[in-house]
């Protein structure tokens, strides 16, 4: 069973993971879409946790930054954290795992990264993957597409996201069975000739 948020006026919580590869227009769309009510986030106001992941890349050249601005690490665009009546936005840089935030999430919106996708599905969280059209043939998308085909997640492009957030029905998603590393160890024991 997928986790479904309790009905009521509670503020929903979405974990959003992005990466630099997503077009910069994703962020405004996300921020515009989330505060509106949607079936996944049962609240007038969602409190998205924006997890900004900045992969290895070139640092922005110092000249492009005003001299007073603090260094922003490797990433180029970092949204400001904000808190209004309808929205609390918390921003953080790369974390090696979503462990702390996932249990609290009612909805996960993620880039197509395998780590974030699998981690969310294992925690039985409703997952929507936003794909970057510019990376259509990128191998990152293979996994997201396959998992969508198997009915474990929704995926869309950035411009489709607001519509999808309104229309998606999490009850149609199928539970994601855990992987079976024990099959691997049994296979390995056999082929290397390990004696018990």
């Amino acid at each position, binding site marked *: 069973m997928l986790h479904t948020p309790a009905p009521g006026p509670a503020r929903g919580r979405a974990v959003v993971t992005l990466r630099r590869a997503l077009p910069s227009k994703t962020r405004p769309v996300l921020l515009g879409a989330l505060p509106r009510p949607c079936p996944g986030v049962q609240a007038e106001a969602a409190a998205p946790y924006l997890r900004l992941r900045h992969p290895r890349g070139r640092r922005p050249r110092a000249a492009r930054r005003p001299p007073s601005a603090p260094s922003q690490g490797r990433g180029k665009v970092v949204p400001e954290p904000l808190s209004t009546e309808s929205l609390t936005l918390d921003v953080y840089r790369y974390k090696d795992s979503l462990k702390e935030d996932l249990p609290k999430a009612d909805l996960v919106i993620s880039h197509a990264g395998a780590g974030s996708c699998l981690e969310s599905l294992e925690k039985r969280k409703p997952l929507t993957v936003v794909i970057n059209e510019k990376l259509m043939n990128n191998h990152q998308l293979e996994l997201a597409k396959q998992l969508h085909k198997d009915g474990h997640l929704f995926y869309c492009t950035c411009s489709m996201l607001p519509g999808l957030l309104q229309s998606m029905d999490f009850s149609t998603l199928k539970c994601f069975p855990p992987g079976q590393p024990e099959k*691997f160890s049994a296979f*390995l024991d056999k082929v290397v000739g*390990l004696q018990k």
Partner: protein
Amino acid sequence: MGGTLILAAAAGAVAVLLAVRLWVVLRPRATVPRRSLSLLVVAGSGGHTTEILRLLENLSDAYSPRHYIIADTDEMSAHKINSFEGNRADRNPRAMFTEYYIHRIPRSREVQQSWLSTVLTTLYSMWLSFPLTHRVKPDLVLCNGPGTCVPICISALLLGILGIKKVIIVYVESICRVEHLSLSGKILFHLSDYFIVQWPTLKEKYPKSVYLGRIV
């Protein structure tokens, strides 16, 4: 003229010898029964590390000592490995101490690196991989596709070709690869003893691979 001919003949002979040795090394053979074996894990970087540690979680203590190879600039992987081994030791207090080592070699390819300089850095990491593999002389090399694993697996193969030690090479293609093998996968498909894929589409395309279902 005569000298050139002799040189060519010698080069040809060496090439044939290497090819024969490669064939001998890669030929399936009867498994040797054993109680323990040393393991060399190419953790590489980022998601690859997370994935391979999940595979290791279920392996018994017979796979010891465990040697990990990571990219020298990759502190995150070192941290993940240390906490993985720490947890493992906590779960199993019977083991007096866990024997594991972390080795660092330069990345074959940084993200966005140009292809020409990739050739050079790969040669450089090959140069460093062989002494490392020779020192460790593992029974088993396990990897899942970071760029670093190609020079390591070739070094392990060389140990076999030179008759120093037959190393079993097991390659597990990352769960991310549903329809296409990674570049490392395409290279090591022919050079590994067991090549494991995690999606049926890949098994159909590469019938010689092993498919055990989703194992991470």
